[in-house]
Protein backbone atom coordinates (compact mmCIF):
# COMPACT_ATOMS: atom_id res chain seq x y z
CA UNK A 1 0.00 0.00 0.00
CA UNK A 2 1.40 3.37 -1.07
CA UNK A 3 0.81 6.04 1.59
CA UNK A 4 0.93 9.77 1.02
CA UNK A 5 -0.63 13.05 2.15
CA UNK A 6 -2.23 14.15 -1.12
CA UNK A 7 -3.00 11.55 -3.74
CA UNK A 8 -3.18 13.31 -7.09
CA UNK A 9 -5.00 11.60 -9.93
CA UNK A 10 -3.55 12.88 -13.19
CA UNK A 11 0.04 13.94 -13.79
CA UNK A 12 -0.63 16.81 -16.20
CA UNK A 13 0.64 20.34 -15.55
CA UNK A 14 -1.98 21.06 -12.87
CA UNK A 15 -1.27 17.84 -10.96
CA UNK A 16 2.46 18.39 -11.19
CA UNK A 17 2.27 21.96 -9.93
CA UNK A 18 0.10 20.81 -7.00
CA UNK A 19 3.15 18.82 -5.83
CA UNK A 20 5.12 22.06 -5.55
CA UNK A 21 2.45 23.93 -3.63
CA UNK A 22 1.90 20.94 -1.33
CA UNK A 23 5.66 20.66 -0.80
CA UNK A 24 5.82 24.23 0.49
CA UNK A 25 3.36 23.08 3.17
CA UNK A 26 5.48 19.97 3.90
CA UNK A 27 2.81 17.71 2.43
CA UNK A 28 3.95 14.73 0.34
CA UNK A 29 2.26 13.81 -2.92
CA UNK A 30 1.87 10.73 -5.05
CA UNK A 31 0.50 10.85 -8.59
CA UNK A 32 -1.41 8.23 -10.59
CA UNK A 33 -1.67 8.51 -14.37
CA UNK A 34 -2.98 6.16 -17.03
CA UNK A 35 -0.26 7.29 -19.42
CA UNK A 36 3.25 5.86 -19.10
CA UNK A 37 4.83 9.32 -18.77
CA UNK A 38 3.98 12.50 -16.81
CA UNK A 39 2.67 15.62 -18.56
CA UNK A 40 -0.86 14.61 -19.56
CA UNK A 41 -2.09 16.14 -22.81
CA UNK A 42 1.04 18.33 -23.00
CA UNK A 43 3.21 15.24 -23.41
CA UNK A 44 0.75 12.94 -25.16
CA UNK A 45 -0.99 15.19 -27.66
CA UNK A 46 1.10 18.29 -28.33
CA UNK A 47 4.63 18.20 -26.85
CA UNK A 48 6.08 20.15 -29.78
CA UNK A 49 3.41 22.85 -29.87
CA UNK A 50 3.95 26.26 -28.30
CA UNK A 51 1.86 27.72 -25.48
CA UNK A 52 1.70 31.51 -25.29
CA UNK A 53 -0.31 32.19 -22.15
CA UNK A 54 1.83 30.89 -19.31
CA UNK A 55 2.57 34.02 -17.28
CA UNK A 56 6.21 35.00 -17.58
CA UNK A 57 6.83 32.75 -20.59
CA UNK A 58 6.15 34.59 -23.88
CA UNK A 59 6.39 31.19 -25.55
CA UNK A 60 7.04 27.70 -24.21
CA UNK A 61 6.72 24.29 -25.85
CA UNK A 62 4.24 22.06 -24.03
CA UNK A 63 6.92 19.39 -23.61
CA UNK A 64 9.36 21.92 -22.15
CA UNK A 65 6.73 23.16 -19.71
CA UNK A 66 6.38 19.60 -18.41
CA UNK A 67 10.17 19.18 -18.17
CA UNK A 68 10.39 22.42 -16.18
CA UNK A 69 7.53 21.43 -13.87
CA UNK A 70 9.25 18.09 -13.21
CA UNK A 71 12.42 19.97 -12.32
CA UNK A 72 10.52 22.40 -10.11
CA UNK A 73 8.90 19.61 -8.06
CA UNK A 74 12.00 17.39 -7.87
CA UNK A 75 12.93 18.59 -4.34
CA UNK A 76 9.55 17.33 -3.10
CA UNK A 77 10.21 13.77 -4.27
CA UNK A 78 6.73 12.90 -5.56
CA UNK A 79 5.85 9.25 -6.08
CA UNK A 80 4.38 8.08 -9.39
CA UNK A 81 2.13 5.22 -10.40
CA UNK A 82 2.28 5.54 -14.17
CA UNK A 83 0.56 3.50 -16.86
CA UNK A 84 -2.27 2.63 -14.45
CA UNK A 85 -5.76 4.06 -14.33
CA UNK A 86 -7.38 5.00 -11.00
CA UNK A 87 -10.40 2.72 -10.93
CA UNK A 88 -12.08 2.61 -7.53
CA UNK A 89 -12.19 4.71 -4.38
CA UNK A 90 -13.13 3.67 -0.88
CA UNK A 91 -13.69 6.04 2.05
CA UNK A 92 -12.48 4.69 5.39
CA UNK A 93 -14.06 5.45 8.78
CA UNK A 94 -11.36 8.01 9.59
CA UNK A 95 -12.28 9.99 6.46
CA UNK A 96 -9.22 8.91 4.48
CA UNK A 97 -9.35 7.19 1.10
CA UNK A 98 -8.01 4.11 -0.64
CA UNK A 99 -7.71 4.44 -4.40
CA UNK A 100 -7.04 1.28 -6.40
CA UNK A 101 -5.87 1.14 -9.99
CA UNK A 102 -7.10 -1.35 -12.58
CA UNK A 103 -3.87 -3.27 -11.99
CA UNK A 104 -4.63 -3.52 -8.28
CA UNK A 105 -2.09 -1.00 -6.93
CA UNK A 106 -3.50 0.50 -3.72
CA UNK A 107 -2.91 4.05 -2.50
CA UNK A 108 -3.92 5.47 0.89
CA UNK A 109 -4.23 9.21 1.59
CA UNK A 110 -6.31 11.61 3.68
CA UNK A 111 -6.76 13.86 0.63
CA UNK A 112 -7.50 12.98 -2.99
CA UNK A 113 -7.04 15.66 -5.66
CA UNK A 114 -8.44 14.77 -9.05
CA UNK A 115 -6.43 16.58 -11.73
CA UNK A 116 -7.53 14.26 -14.47
CA UNK A 117 -7.91 16.74 -17.32
CA UNK A 118 -10.41 15.40 -19.80
CA UNK A 119 -10.07 11.92 -18.31
CA UNK A 120 -7.79 8.97 -18.81
CA UNK A 121 -6.49 8.32 -22.28
CA UNK A 122 -8.06 5.27 -23.84
CA UNK A 123 -7.60 3.76 -27.27
CA UNK A 124 -9.88 5.05 -30.00
CA UNK A 125 -11.84 2.14 -31.39
CA UNK A 126 -12.88 1.72 -35.02
CA UNK A 127 -16.62 1.32 -35.67
CA UNK A 128 -16.75 -2.45 -36.18
CA UNK A 129 -19.98 -3.81 -34.78
CA UNK A 130 -18.70 -6.99 -33.12
CA UNK A 131 -15.32 -5.53 -32.11
CA UNK A 132 -15.96 -5.70 -28.36
CA UNK A 133 -16.79 -9.44 -28.58
CA UNK A 134 -13.18 -10.11 -29.53
CA UNK A 135 -11.39 -7.83 -27.06
CA UNK A 136 -8.52 -9.84 -25.56
CA UNK A 137 -9.59 -12.68 -27.85
CA UNK A 138 -7.34 -11.61 -30.66
CA UNK A 139 -8.17 -7.90 -30.61
CA UNK A 140 -5.71 -5.69 -28.72
CA UNK A 141 -5.62 -1.90 -28.79
CA UNK A 142 -2.29 -1.59 -27.02
CA UNK A 143 0.70 -3.85 -27.49
CA UNK A 144 1.84 -4.79 -24.01
CA UNK A 145 3.87 -7.91 -24.73
CA UNK A 146 5.16 -8.34 -28.29
CA UNK A 147 5.90 -12.02 -27.54
CA UNK A 148 2.15 -12.63 -27.74
CA UNK A 149 2.51 -12.27 -31.50
CA UNK A 150 5.39 -14.69 -32.03
CA UNK A 151 4.72 -16.85 -35.10
CA UNK A 152 1.20 -15.44 -35.44
CA UNK A 153 -0.58 -13.77 -38.34
CA UNK A 154 -1.12 -10.16 -37.36
CA UNK A 155 -3.27 -7.48 -38.97
CA UNK A 156 -2.58 -3.89 -37.92
CA UNK A 157 -4.80 -1.03 -38.93
CA UNK A 158 -4.03 2.70 -38.71
CA UNK A 159 -1.89 5.28 -40.45
CA UNK A 160 0.11 7.00 -37.73
CA UNK A 161 3.41 6.45 -36.02
CA UNK A 162 2.30 3.63 -33.76
CA UNK A 163 0.79 1.63 -36.66
CA UNK A 164 4.01 2.08 -38.65
CA UNK A 165 6.40 1.41 -35.78
CA UNK A 166 4.64 -1.72 -34.56
CA UNK A 167 4.33 -3.07 -38.09
CA UNK A 168 8.09 -2.70 -38.45
CA UNK A 169 8.82 -4.21 -35.04
CA UNK A 170 6.51 -7.18 -35.43
CA UNK A 171 8.06 -8.29 -38.74
CA UNK A 172 10.85 -9.79 -36.60
CA UNK A 173 8.45 -11.73 -34.39
CA UNK A 174 5.21 -12.49 -36.16
CA UNK A 175 4.66 -15.06 -38.88
CA UNK A 176 3.07 -12.41 -41.07
CA UNK A 177 2.27 -8.71 -40.75
CA UNK A 178 -0.44 -6.99 -42.73
CA UNK A 179 -0.97 -3.23 -42.50
CA UNK A 180 -4.34 -1.86 -43.54
CA UNK A 181 -4.87 1.88 -43.90
CA UNK A 182 -7.61 4.01 -45.36
CA UNK A 183 -5.18 6.12 -47.38
CA UNK A 184 -2.10 5.49 -49.45
CA UNK A 185 -0.31 8.15 -47.38
CA UNK A 186 0.87 7.64 -43.82
CA UNK A 187 1.37 10.22 -41.08
CA UNK A 188 4.59 9.29 -39.39
CA UNK A 189 8.27 9.95 -39.06
CA UNK A 190 9.91 9.86 -42.48
CA UNK A 191 12.29 7.03 -41.61
CA UNK A 192 9.36 4.88 -40.37
CA UNK A 193 7.48 5.42 -43.62
CA UNK A 194 10.59 4.56 -45.64
CA UNK A 195 11.27 1.47 -43.54
CA UNK A 196 7.73 0.19 -44.12
CA UNK A 197 8.21 0.79 -47.84
CA UNK A 198 11.44 -1.23 -47.73
CA UNK A 199 9.81 -4.08 -45.77
CA UNK A 200 6.93 -4.08 -48.22
CA UNK A 201 9.37 -4.39 -51.13
CA UNK A 202 11.05 -7.29 -49.34
CA UNK A 203 7.67 -8.95 -48.90
CA UNK A 204 7.82 -8.77 -45.09
CA UNK A 205 4.84 -6.44 -44.70
CA UNK A 206 1.72 -6.82 -46.75
CA UNK A 207 0.33 -3.33 -47.28
CA UNK A 208 -3.34 -3.00 -48.12
CA UNK A 209 -4.34 0.57 -48.99
CA UNK A 210 -6.64 2.39 -49.40
CA UNK A 211 -8.71 -0.05 -47.41
CA UNK A 212 -10.48 -0.57 -44.11
CA UNK A 213 -11.10 -3.47 -41.77
CA UNK A 214 -14.89 -3.50 -41.56
CA UNK A 215 -15.64 -6.78 -39.82
CA UNK A 216 -14.30 -9.63 -37.73
CA UNK A 217 -15.08 -13.33 -38.00
CA UNK A 218 -14.44 -16.06 -35.44
CA UNK A 219 -16.09 -18.39 -32.98
CA UNK A 220 -14.16 -18.03 -29.72
CA UNK A 221 -11.46 -15.73 -31.04
CA UNK A 222 -10.58 -13.73 -34.11
CA UNK A 223 -10.02 -16.00 -37.09
CA UNK A 224 -10.52 -13.63 -40.01
CA UNK A 225 -10.74 -9.95 -40.74
CA UNK A 226 -13.13 -8.57 -43.32
CA UNK A 227 -11.42 -5.95 -45.47
CA UNK A 228 -13.11 -3.44 -47.74
CA UNK A 229 -10.97 -2.07 -50.54
CA UNK A 230 -12.89 0.13 -52.91
CA UNK A 231 -15.92 -1.88 -54.02
CA UNK A 232 -14.24 -5.16 -53.17
CA UNK A 233 -14.82 -6.93 -49.84
CA UNK A 234 -12.71 -9.92 -48.87
CA UNK A 235 -11.74 -11.98 -45.83
CA UNK A 236 -8.21 -12.73 -44.66
CA UNK A 237 -7.14 -15.22 -42.02
CA UNK A 238 -5.43 -13.82 -38.95
CA UNK A 239 -4.73 -14.57 -35.28
CA UNK A 240 -4.62 -10.96 -34.07
CA UNK A 241 -6.19 -7.70 -35.12
CA UNK A 242 -4.54 -4.59 -33.67
CA UNK A 243 -6.35 -1.32 -34.43
CA UNK A 244 -3.99 1.60 -33.65
CA UNK A 245 -5.99 4.81 -34.01
CA UNK A 246 -4.46 6.86 -31.21
CA UNK A 247 -5.81 7.70 -27.80
CA UNK A 248 -8.77 9.80 -26.72
CA UNK A 249 -9.55 10.95 -23.19
CA UNK A 250 -12.61 9.61 -21.38
CA UNK A 251 -13.73 10.58 -17.88
CA UNK A 252 -13.90 6.84 -17.23
CA UNK A 253 -14.39 5.23 -13.81
CA UNK A 254 -14.15 8.57 -11.95
CA UNK A 255 -17.65 9.27 -13.24
CA UNK A 256 -18.89 6.48 -10.94
CA UNK A 257 -17.29 7.71 -7.72
CA UNK A 258 -20.41 9.49 -6.49
CA UNK A 259 -19.12 12.91 -7.46
CA UNK A 260 -21.47 15.53 -8.85
CA UNK A 261 -20.89 15.63 -12.60
CA UNK A 262 -21.97 18.44 -14.90
CA UNK A 263 -20.95 18.91 -18.56
CA UNK A 264 -18.63 15.88 -18.38
CA UNK A 265 -16.71 17.56 -15.56
CA UNK A 266 -16.70 17.42 -11.76
CA UNK A 267 -18.59 20.17 -9.95
CA UNK A 268 -16.55 21.98 -7.31
CA UNK A 269 -16.95 24.84 -4.87
CA UNK A 270 -14.88 27.53 -6.54
CA UNK A 271 -15.74 30.21 -4.01
CA UNK A 272 -13.70 28.28 -1.44
CA UNK A 273 -11.24 25.54 -2.27
CA UNK A 274 -12.25 23.43 -5.29
CA UNK A 275 -13.60 20.66 -3.09
CA UNK A 276 -16.17 18.31 -4.59
CA UNK A 277 -19.41 17.16 -2.98
CA UNK A 278 -17.37 14.50 -1.15
CA UNK A 279 -15.33 16.15 1.64
CA UNK A 280 -11.64 15.39 1.19
CA UNK A 281 -11.89 14.94 -2.56
CA UNK A 282 -10.88 17.97 -4.61
CA UNK A 283 -10.96 18.46 -8.40
CA UNK A 284 -8.57 20.89 -10.07
CA UNK A 285 -7.70 21.86 -13.63
CA UNK A 286 -9.62 20.90 -16.75
CA UNK A 287 -11.52 18.11 -14.96
CA UNK A 288 -13.61 20.47 -12.84
CA UNK A 289 -16.43 22.85 -13.58
CA UNK A 290 -17.93 25.89 -11.85
CA UNK A 291 -19.60 29.08 -13.06
CA UNK A 292 -17.17 30.91 -15.32
CA UNK A 293 -14.73 27.99 -15.58
CA UNK A 294 -11.94 28.32 -18.14
CA UNK A 295 -9.88 25.29 -19.12
CA UNK A 296 -6.50 26.97 -19.02
CA UNK A 297 -3.24 25.70 -17.54
CA UNK A 298 -2.80 28.94 -15.65
CA UNK A 299 -6.23 28.53 -14.03
CA UNK A 300 -5.24 24.98 -13.04
CA UNK A 301 -2.15 26.34 -11.30
CA UNK A 302 -4.28 28.74 -9.27
CA UNK A 303 -6.77 26.02 -8.35
CA UNK A 304 -3.95 23.68 -7.30
CA UNK A 305 -2.54 26.36 -4.98
CA UNK A 306 -5.83 27.01 -3.21
CA UNK A 307 -6.57 23.28 -2.99
CA UNK A 308 -3.29 22.65 -1.14
CA UNK A 309 -4.00 25.33 1.47
CA UNK A 310 -7.41 23.78 2.12
CA UNK A 311 -5.93 20.27 2.22
CA UNK A 312 -3.44 21.40 4.87
CA UNK A 313 -6.25 22.76 7.02
CA UNK A 314 -8.12 19.50 6.62
CA UNK A 315 -5.15 17.37 7.61
CA UNK A 316 -4.10 19.66 10.48
CA UNK A 317 -7.31 21.33 11.68
CA UNK A 318 -5.65 22.60 14.88
CA UNK A 319 -2.54 24.09 13.32
CA UNK A 320 -2.27 27.76 12.51
CA UNK A 321 -0.51 28.67 9.30
CA UNK A 322 -0.13 31.62 6.99
CA UNK A 323 1.05 31.42 3.41
CA UNK A 324 4.72 32.28 2.95
CA UNK A 325 6.33 33.79 -0.13
CA UNK A 326 9.03 31.55 -1.63
CA UNK A 327 11.22 34.63 -2.03
CA UNK A 328 11.09 35.06 1.77
CA UNK A 329 10.91 31.47 2.98
CA UNK A 330 12.87 29.77 0.21
CA UNK A 331 12.17 26.20 -0.86
CA UNK A 332 13.16 23.39 1.47
CA UNK A 333 13.07 20.08 -0.33
CA UNK A 334 12.30 16.72 1.26
CA UNK A 335 15.64 15.65 -0.18
CA UNK A 336 17.51 18.01 2.17
CA UNK A 337 18.03 20.63 -0.54
CA UNK A 338 17.39 24.27 0.22
CA UNK A 339 16.98 27.14 -2.17
CA UNK A 340 16.72 30.69 -0.85
CA UNK A 341 17.26 34.25 -1.85
CA UNK A 342 20.81 35.45 -1.19
CA UNK A 343 21.03 37.34 2.09
CA UNK A 344 22.51 40.79 2.19
CA UNK A 345 25.50 41.24 4.48
CA UNK A 346 26.47 44.06 6.79
CA UNK A 347 30.11 44.77 6.33
CA UNK A 348 32.05 47.99 6.44
CA UNK A 349 34.21 48.94 3.52
CA UNK A 350 37.65 50.20 4.54
Amino acid sequence: MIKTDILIIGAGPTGLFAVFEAGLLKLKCHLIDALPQPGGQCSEIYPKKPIYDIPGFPEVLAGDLVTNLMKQIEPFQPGFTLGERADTIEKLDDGSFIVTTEKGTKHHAPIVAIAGGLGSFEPRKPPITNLSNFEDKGVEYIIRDPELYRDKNVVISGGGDSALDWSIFLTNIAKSVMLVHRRNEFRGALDSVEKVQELKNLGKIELITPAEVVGLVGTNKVEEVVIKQGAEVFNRECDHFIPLFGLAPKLGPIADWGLEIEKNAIKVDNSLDYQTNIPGIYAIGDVNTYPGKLKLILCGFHEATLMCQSAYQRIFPDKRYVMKYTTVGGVEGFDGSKKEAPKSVIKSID
Partner: protein
Amino acid sequence: MTDVKITIIDRQGVKHQVDAPTDMNMNLMEIVRSYELAPEGTIGICGGMAMCASCQCYILSNHALPEISYDEDMMLSEASNVKENSRLGCQIFIKEELEGLEIELAPEV
Protein backbone atom coordinates in the same frame (compact mmCIF):
# COMPACT_ATOMS: atom_id res chain seq x y z
CA MET B 1 -17.86 43.33 -38.74
CA THR B 2 -20.84 41.15 -39.52
CA ASP B 3 -22.38 37.95 -38.35
CA VAL B 4 -23.22 35.11 -40.71
CA LYS B 5 -26.05 32.64 -40.35
CA ILE B 6 -25.01 29.02 -40.08
CA THR B 7 -27.24 25.99 -39.80
CA ILE B 8 -26.01 23.21 -37.55
CA ILE B 9 -27.67 19.81 -37.20
CA ASP B 10 -26.68 18.43 -33.81
CA ARG B 11 -25.98 14.78 -32.97
CA GLN B 12 -29.63 14.24 -32.12
CA GLY B 13 -30.65 15.44 -35.56
CA VAL B 14 -32.04 18.76 -34.33
CA LYS B 15 -31.50 21.71 -36.65
CA HIS B 16 -30.27 25.05 -35.22
CA GLN B 17 -29.71 28.30 -37.06
CA VAL B 18 -27.12 30.41 -35.28
CA ASP B 19 -25.33 33.72 -35.74
CA ALA B 20 -21.58 33.36 -36.03
CA PRO B 21 -19.25 36.36 -35.74
CA THR B 22 -16.71 36.87 -38.51
CA ASP B 23 -14.43 39.13 -36.48
CA MET B 24 -13.44 36.91 -33.54
CA ASN B 25 -11.18 34.39 -35.26
CA MET B 26 -13.69 31.67 -34.33
CA ASN B 27 -14.01 28.31 -36.03
CA LEU B 28 -17.01 26.03 -36.49
CA MET B 29 -16.08 23.85 -33.51
CA GLU B 30 -16.05 26.92 -31.28
CA ILE B 31 -19.39 28.11 -32.65
CA VAL B 32 -20.92 24.72 -31.73
CA ARG B 33 -19.44 24.99 -28.23
CA SER B 34 -20.51 28.60 -27.77
CA TYR B 35 -24.13 27.67 -28.49
CA GLU B 36 -23.76 24.46 -26.42
CA LEU B 37 -24.98 22.28 -29.31
CA ALA B 38 -22.78 19.37 -28.16
CA PRO B 39 -21.89 18.56 -24.54
CA GLU B 40 -18.56 19.89 -23.30
CA GLY B 41 -15.95 17.16 -23.34
CA THR B 42 -17.39 15.60 -26.49
CA ILE B 43 -16.20 18.21 -28.97
CA GLY B 44 -12.96 20.13 -29.38
CA ILE B 45 -11.10 17.78 -27.06
CA CYS B 46 -7.65 18.67 -28.42
CA GLY B 47 -8.56 22.34 -28.29
CA GLY B 48 -8.61 22.87 -32.05
CA MET B 49 -5.29 21.45 -33.24
CA ALA B 50 -6.72 18.96 -35.76
CA MET B 51 -5.49 16.22 -33.48
CA CYS B 52 -8.60 14.43 -32.23
CA ALA B 53 -11.43 14.57 -34.81
CA SER B 54 -14.04 15.12 -32.08
CA CYS B 55 -15.32 18.12 -34.09
CA GLN B 56 -15.80 16.17 -37.32
CA CYS B 57 -18.78 17.44 -39.28
CA TYR B 58 -20.41 16.83 -42.64
CA ILE B 59 -20.74 19.80 -44.97
CA LEU B 60 -24.24 19.81 -46.43
CA SER B 61 -24.19 23.01 -48.49
CA ASN B 62 -22.09 23.89 -51.53
CA HIS B 63 -19.85 26.53 -50.02
CA ALA B 64 -16.26 27.04 -51.10
CA LEU B 65 -14.31 26.08 -48.00
CA PRO B 66 -10.63 26.58 -47.16
CA GLU B 67 -8.51 23.83 -48.61
CA ILE B 68 -7.96 20.81 -46.41
CA SER B 69 -4.54 20.97 -44.75
CA TYR B 70 -2.14 18.05 -44.47
CA ASP B 71 -2.81 17.73 -40.72
CA GLU B 72 -6.58 17.79 -41.17
CA ASP B 73 -6.42 15.28 -44.01
CA MET B 74 -4.28 12.89 -42.00
CA MET B 75 -6.51 13.18 -38.93
CA LEU B 76 -9.56 12.40 -41.08
CA SER B 77 -7.73 9.41 -42.50
CA GLU B 78 -7.72 7.88 -39.02
CA ALA B 79 -11.12 9.06 -37.79
CA SER B 80 -14.33 7.03 -37.70
CA ASN B 81 -17.55 7.67 -39.64
CA VAL B 82 -15.68 9.63 -42.30
CA LYS B 83 -17.61 10.53 -45.46
CA GLU B 84 -16.76 12.36 -48.67
CA ASN B 85 -18.01 15.63 -47.15
CA SER B 86 -16.25 15.26 -43.79
CA ARG B 87 -14.26 18.16 -42.39
CA LEU B 88 -12.88 19.09 -38.99
CA GLY B 89 -14.90 22.01 -37.63
CA CYS B 90 -11.85 23.43 -35.87
CA GLN B 91 -10.13 24.03 -39.20
CA ILE B 92 -12.94 26.07 -40.75
CA PHE B 93 -12.86 29.68 -39.64
CA ILE B 94 -15.93 31.87 -39.83
CA LYS B 95 -15.72 34.23 -42.79
CA GLU B 96 -18.35 36.24 -44.64
CA GLU B 97 -18.32 33.72 -47.52
CA LEU B 98 -19.79 31.14 -45.13
CA GLU B 99 -23.17 32.91 -44.94
CA GLY B 100 -25.82 30.19 -45.14
CA LEU B 101 -23.43 27.28 -44.49
CA GLU B 102 -25.12 24.07 -43.42
CA ILE B 103 -23.35 21.36 -41.46
CA GLU B 104 -24.16 18.22 -39.51
CA LEU B 105 -22.11 17.04 -36.53
CA ALA B 106 -20.62 13.56 -36.93
CA PRO B 107 -21.49 11.02 -34.21
CA GLU B 108 -19.55 11.09 -30.96
CA VAL B 109 -16.85 8.44 -30.84
